């Protein structure tokens, strides 16, 4: 599975080239185009290990309930993936390691990579944003998307990221939810609310824009729901 990202940062797509008979997994709804010889299987979880419970968990994490498994023919093939909002995409090669991915950012992964629901404790509930996380572990490629551009931050010690701006982070980082300012009042008056304070040594990938913020900026100006 060889992935190339093109047309970033605003209109990014991931071009996934598959070797003969190779399989990979993608989030439902992300396929834009593909070679004609691709076979597709839809399951609630990992190919061959489907369970409703894991599908349900993924639904709550903001991902599609179902995963699509694409298998190329004996000639290989290509699948092109995109995301629903304007923004960028990235590929991370995992070497027997784990990423924690924000609910809506997962797009696709190769077969050597396991995806599961990740419980980050009650602290996530209070963050008020994506409460759910996916644990993505193993060896292979992972494709992620973002709203706006993606920028990596190498953390050594402590680093603060607004809760709505996290795409993913390496497992060796831990985070706590805290106030952006000195007091709760100044945090909320400052418009920053709650932030994630990361600790440890690792990488956190941030997105330049916050989808919740965009929704709140535009949504109230639209016609009421009927």
């Amino acid at each position, binding site marked *: 599975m060889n992935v190339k990202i093109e*047309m970033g940062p605003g209109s990014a*797509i991931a071009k996934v080239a598959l070797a003969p008979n190779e399989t990979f997994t993608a989030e439902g709804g992300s*396929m*834009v*185009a593909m070679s*004609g010889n691709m076979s*597709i299987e*839809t399951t609630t979880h990992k190919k061959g290990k489907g369970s409703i419970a894991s599908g349900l968990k993924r639904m709550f994490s903001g991902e599609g309930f179902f995963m699509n498994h694409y298998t190329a023919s004996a000639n290989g093939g290509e699948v092109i993936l995109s995301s629903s909002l*304007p923004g960028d995409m990235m590929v991370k090669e995992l070497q027997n390691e784990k990423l924690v991915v924000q609910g809506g950012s997962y797009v696709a992964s190769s077969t050597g990579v396991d995806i599961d629901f990740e419980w980050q404790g009650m602290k996530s509930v209070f963050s008020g944003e994506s409460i759910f996380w996916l644990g993505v572990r193993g060896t292979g490629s992972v494709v992620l998307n973002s709203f706006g551009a993606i920028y990596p931050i190498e953390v050594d010690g402590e680093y603060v990221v607004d809760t709505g701006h996290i795409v993913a982070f390496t497992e060796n980082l831990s985070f706590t939810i805290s106030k952006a300012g000195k007091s709760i009042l100044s945090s909320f008056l400052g418009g920053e609310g709650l932030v994630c304070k990361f600790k440890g040594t690792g990488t956190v990938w941030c997105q330049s824009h916050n989808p919740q913020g965009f929704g709140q900026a535009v949504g109230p100006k639209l016609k009421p*729901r009927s």
Partner: protein
Amino acid sequence: MSMKFEFSLDKKPDYGFITVKIPAGQTLKVEASAMASMDTNVIMKTKMKGGLGRLLTGESLFINEFTAEKAPGEICLAPSSPGDVDHIYLDNDTIFMQNSAFVASAMGIETATKWQGLTKGFFSGEKLFLIKCSGTGDLWFNSYGGIFSVDVDGDYVVDTGHIVAFTGGLEYKISKVGGYKSLFLSGEGLVCKFSGKGKIWVQTRKVSPMVSFFWPFRPQKSN
């Protein structure tokens, strides 16, 4: 015989716009409202083109004609939503285009609507109204999101909502992706299966998921 216009495509793929130099005495057909700026050598005339057919495709009923009357002129064209622009020169050829993709063309290009009918367009869940552009000359088109092209030789599959345009020689049919389970559960809906030899232009984003994204942020109706 048709001349080629000198033009440039700038700020692709997110804010793509088209600049065309019109030689003295030449005319350009432009989708109504696509003109962003022009110099004073260029004069606009509004024409009713295509009549009811264009109404069906959801395109505006009007195509404007921009003529550089006495001296060469320059015009900048931009589509109404942020996204990409692209160009093809047709040499006695045909191209099919998504209803809203047409931006501008040389006078040698005829545009006609080719409604997909119940069997093809309706069940795909997307309005697959196609405009048929044929003749000889330059043709410019646009989409929401970026545009990439695929050279097809054999079979190729595109989500119906992501098709911008395709060359006239390609066969196509609407079908489902995978088995029946995949049709309802995969989130991929229906796709367009192309076969033969030709070229397809595909857009990287769709408007409808953006609209769905805003749903929870819209105000509740109060009675």
